[in-house]
């Protein structure tokens, strides 16, 4: 589980929530105390220790929901799902029921509206005489519960380091890798073997396994896609932002303007927070008795060198005269955006624009 927390912290960092190693350690200590059983408590604890301002809390909320939700990955049945799927989902909803989906009568009749009836019948009649699958993945697919499958998938994902995914085109690759890790090869072999067998039950099992395999592939693809959005999407955004910061202003394209606005706002905020608290000590103000006494002790306690304290907060005033004529329109657009962002934060921003006449 520690690894999971570290992974989650990584996800938060890519989503621009600043999490220090010390905070990660704090989370570990806290979790030892609160445990994993109560999801709301777990979430609140993490939220308090990791996200430290309202914006970060919001980001945290979305990341947490994406990261710690597995159920919907598994619950969304693929269109045209086989009766097995229905049985399986029943087993999941009713967690106390038996693990063996083949023995579940509930799934047979309900069999999903979109499912092919003849196929359902086929599967139904074959229930009694299909032998149990031999490959590990096959057993898991037909006999394991959804949560078993989910855990296996997550483990395989971790083994192939799906969180390293960077670009969209890698999705297929990672899907394949996860399937391989889960034991696709053995399953394939079993399917081929059973298909060639003369026994009808064997063949039926092969068909079943095949369907389950295709479904699993879709699910793994979904899983990888989610992981991609979690790990790589933000990463891509960062990459884009870095690039935009370096690109020449005149080369900016219209589609980038939204991103630029975000960056500009961040820059302006940084600038303001640095400069809004400059202090100046004056020769006037309140008498600093403490300093005076200390300082004058060397003169036998006679006060003749007085110390004053006074703090002046310097709020920057920004005055801008801007040429907005066509030749520099790209630059001035950037500047005006910057000023606009500044104006939201500092009260005193005055801008004058001109192309031929000056206007405020």
């Amino acid at each position, binding site marked *: 589980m520690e690894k999971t927390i570290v992974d989650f912290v990584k996800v938060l960092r890519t989503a621009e929530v*600043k999490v*220090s190693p*010390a*905070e990660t350690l*704090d989370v570990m*200590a*806290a979790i030892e*105390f*609160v445990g994993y059983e109560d999801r*709301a*408590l777990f979430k*609140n*604890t993490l*939220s*308090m*220790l990791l*996200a*430290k*301002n*309202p914006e970060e*809390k919001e980001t945290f909320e979305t990341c947490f929901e994406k990261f710690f939700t597995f159920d919907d990955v598994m619950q969304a049945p693929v269109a045209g799902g086989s009766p097995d799927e229905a049985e399986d989902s029943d087993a999941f909803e009713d967690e106390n029921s038996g693990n063996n989906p083949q023995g579940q009568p509930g799934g047979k009749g309900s069999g999903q509206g979109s499912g092919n009836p003849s196929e359902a019948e086929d599967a139904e009649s074959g229930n009694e005489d299909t032998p149990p699958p031999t490959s590990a993945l096959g057993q898991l697919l037909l006999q394991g519960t959804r949560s078993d499958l989910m855990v296996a998938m997550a483990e395989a994902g971790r083994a192939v380091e799906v969180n390293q995914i960077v670009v969209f085109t890698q999705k297929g690759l990672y899907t394949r890798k996860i399937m391989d890790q889960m034991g696709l090869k053995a399953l394939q072999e079993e399917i081929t073997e059973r298909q060639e067998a003369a026994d009808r039950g064997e063949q039926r099992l092969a068909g079943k396994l095949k369907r389950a395999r295709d479904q699993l592939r879709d699910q793994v693809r979904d899983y990888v896609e989610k992981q991609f959005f979690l790990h790589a999407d933000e990463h891509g955004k960062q990459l884009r932002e870095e690039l935009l910061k370096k690109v020449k202003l005149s080369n900016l394209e219209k589609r980038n303007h939204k991103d630029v606005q975000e960056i500009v706002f961040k820059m302006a905020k940084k600038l303001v*927070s640095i400069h*809004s*608290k400059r*202090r100046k000590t004056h020769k006037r103000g309140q008498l600093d*008795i*403490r300093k005076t*006494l200390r300082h004058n002790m060397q003169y036998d*306690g006679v006060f003749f060198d007085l110390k004053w*304290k006074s*703090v002046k*907060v310097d709020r920057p005033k920004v005055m801008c005269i801007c040429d907005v004529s066509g030749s520099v329109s790209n630059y001035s657009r950037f500047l005006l955006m910057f000023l606009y962002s500044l104006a939201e934060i500092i009260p005193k921003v005055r801008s004058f624009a001109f192309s031929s006449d000056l206007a405020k």
Partner: protein
Amino acid sequence: MPDALLARAVQPLPVALPNLFKRGSPLTLDRDEHLATIEAIHSGLAGLNYISNEQIATAVFLAYHLDKPVLIEGPPGVGKTELAKSVADMLGISCIRLQCYEGLDESKAIYEWKYGKQLLYTQVLKETLGEILDGAKGLTESVAKLHEFGDVFFSEEFLEPRPLMKALKEEAGCVLLIDEVDKSDHEFESLLLEMLSDYQLSIPEIGTIKANPDRKPLVFLTSNNTREISDALKRRCLHLYIPFPDADLESQIVQARVPEVPAELRRQLVTFIQALREMDLKKVPAISETIDWAKALILLHTESLDADLVKQTLNVILKFQEDIESVTGEVQMLTNKALKGS
């Protein structure tokens, strides 16, 4: 004289320790009981008319069990300061408050020397110097004799503890409320770091003062987000954000705080306030304003909202003339809306 002073400084300690020990056990039990589970905190605070939500109770729970300060942020008037006070009341311990402002420094927050007394002491010392150095031959011997009676000048005798140090010295534990920490200077934040991470303070002349390890103070910091708090400070704290409450919670709060308000009026005024919060105002009304308004309406013997009354009492909930002007036009509509729900 200095010897006598020294003796006095040392004496109280051995007496104080067993006392503390005796008082200790029942108190611990009591406090642990109050903070044992999140539900216990919930109901404990509710008993004091502070209606908490899941996050608030969890924050108090974690703060106590992990020994971490809580940084509370949120718009003004949602009960940040009140939380600290209520927790102190719940646990039956004192609440030491440090109000932050621009220019607050260590002499106001941590400690100050009693300069007047120190000056007097030097005077006395000067007079008795002859006796102390009696019989000493040569400078070396005199200096050695001077060293013998210890350095009382910078000792706890002459120390005036300020809130932070008072909180550390509180043997039975306490709630330390550092209010509006965002109003203080950056330098002050750095002063707080040692206190917040290790529950200790260093005084160069004396050494380090530590809190009683079994009864560390529960520290709450509040901030209105007027400026960004430094990462170093945030890292050491649990972060709790208290937003404006939803209608349900607000109604519960009003009921707890102003029980005289009839249910129907309570529902109306909560609906009205919630609608106001949706508007684009300079300062939206907070819970404290809702409570004030409820009290005002009770004083005016109101049983149901009506537009005229609302117009007359708008200044209770809105604190800017511009806001009042912009809302006045909408009052009829908002009141109707609030009445309609019934």
